[in-house]
């Protein structure tokens, strides 16, 4: 068995080759091959051997998303089914809802021209109000949610067109 997976972590995509072998996996990443194997002690808690070194880790998987706790840190990985264009900090990400919450106010309308730093809308979650602003000068294309609505984290609330 040999599988190529694309891992998305901290906005960067890494291609990884995973080959099952008799006693674990051989994982090729960034030109280096690591032999890994592990054993679950209880659901989500495991002891691994990576290149002969034993270590303890915890994980939770939901579909193609994985959180991994190792040596005091949590890393989040998403498996993308195919190689997607490498993501940077795309302009449109700035107007996605930063977290799930209540859309308390929408401050712009379609067609409106906004300046860099101008407030677009306000989301409230966990008793904190977050003002979402335009990163650059732009024109509002569409508003996709209404005040008083619950929005998902990462949902696009306002669509902007730059350089308009």
């Amino acid at each position: 068995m040999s599988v190529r997976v694309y891992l998305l972590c901290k906005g960067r995509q890494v291609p990884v080759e995973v080959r099952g072998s008799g006693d674990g996996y051989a994982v090729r990443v960034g030109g280096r091959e690591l032999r890994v194997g592990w054993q679950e002690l209880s659901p989500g808690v495991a002891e691994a051997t990576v290149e002969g070194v034993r270590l303890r880790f915890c994980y939770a998987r939901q579909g193609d998303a994985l959180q991994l706790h190792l040596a005091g840190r949590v890393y989040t990985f998403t498996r993308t089914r195919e190689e997607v264009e490498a993501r940077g900090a795309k302009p449109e990400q700035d107007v996605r809802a930063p977290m799930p919450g209540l859309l308390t106010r929408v401050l712009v309308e379609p067609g409106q021209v906004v300046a860099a730093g101008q407030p677009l809308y306000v989301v409230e979650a966990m008793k904190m109000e977050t003002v979402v602003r335009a990163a650059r000068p732009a024109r509002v294309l569409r508003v996709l949610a209404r005040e008083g609505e619950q929005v998902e984290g990462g949902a696009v609330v306002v669509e902007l067109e730059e350089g308009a």
Partner: protein
Amino acid sequence: MTTAPPFSKVLVANRGEIAVRVIRACRELGVRTVAVYSEADRHSPHVLLADEAVCLGPAEPEASYLNIGRLVDAACGAGAEAVHPGYGFLAENPEFARACEEAGLVFVGPPSHVIAALGDKDRARRLAERLGIPTVPGHPAADDDTLERAARALGFPVVLKAAAGGGGRGMRVVTGPERFRETLASARREVKAAFGDDAVLLEKYLDRPRHVEVQIVADRYGTVVHLGERDCSVQRRHQKIVEESPSPAVDPHLRRRLGEAALRLAREAGYVNAGTVEFLLDREGRFYFLEANTRLQVEHPVTELVAGVDLVHLQLQVAAGRRLSLRQEDVVWRGHAVEARVYAEDPERGFAPSPGRILLLREPHLPGVRVDSGVQEGQEVPVHYDPILSKVVAWAPDRPTAVARLAHALQEYVLLGPRTNLGFLLDLVTHPAFLAGEVSTQFVEDQLAAWQAPDPPPEAVALAAALLAQEPRGPAPVASARAPDPWERLAGARLP
């Protein structure tokens, strides 16, 4: 101390870690407990920990934890003798205290008129000034125009604050006149949502002060003791995140002066029960009265560990009309305690709140470490309330060891599902400036503004790749999917 329980039954009008903390304290004293919960908190641990539990209603705070009528009805209906408000929500709301008093319930806190007097920050300032305790220059709550004029007169930067309620809610630093109105409007909205009152006051912004506060406890008979100070300088967006006792900046002489100022204020205000007097300490060692918090603080455990007392026990005992058994000369401080607050927030996305289901939870067990937690594996962290999940508190004979213990506890703390600030806290408490005790309320902005989560090491990438190379087994690692059919349909027992 084999005395009778201070009350037969107490309703705990709160949720999360503080509800758990208060319920446990009641149990230890032989007091029966009534928990309250909103529909969003059905699977929160405080609910089944109490002897009884009453559902208040929908998730929205106004319909549940801020609903005075429902809370008083629940307490009376369950036959509770007293109500413990915890912190936040209605803990500093004089109407709630009055509603309890009028319903014949003992409110575990000061009398409603004391809450009203001290909870109003303008009145509290004037009281401090009358007693000769220095205060930060500022302007009381007023309309937008008046506040804007006052800000220009004082000179920027200025701080906006809720006139009612503490905890840093609504607090905003305004550096210049351009965004004053916008910031004020935002502060008013947040303050209104948190405390039901949009009054905002103004203060001159001090450069890099420390936040130092004194814990007091008073009985009904005029005995007031102070239990030393806590240093709560380490804040992010005016929310305390790491607290310690003693303060590295307070020597015995300053401790005595701070303690005396706090006792004077408490006596003059006719204070009863546990409370906190907050000060700013400038770089020249001068202190300024900030405000008084008429309730238990989030960070009360650091005082408990250093002073060797149980503040919730003392609260219940003095609320029951007992005399304080503790005299000022009996208070002995020993060792050092540091607390870190664990929040459901994502430091990699600007500390945005991060609610959701807890998929895996392993809280740390270490000698000298106490974890006050309000969540359990499998529950949904609701989007409607404060993002605090738990507090990790380390005690040791000296500060370096206490901080080392805290760091190890943070490393061993596993919480998957919602994102948390655990990694950020770990980097904070191992930062050289923190280890040296050199902090101010600007510490995070000064030292950790450019903080970034570390990239995953190769072994993490390799393990993740091998795990994700497997086809997913079933919808989720959580148990609700494993329950056989009839339970899935069990009315009211489905996980949210």
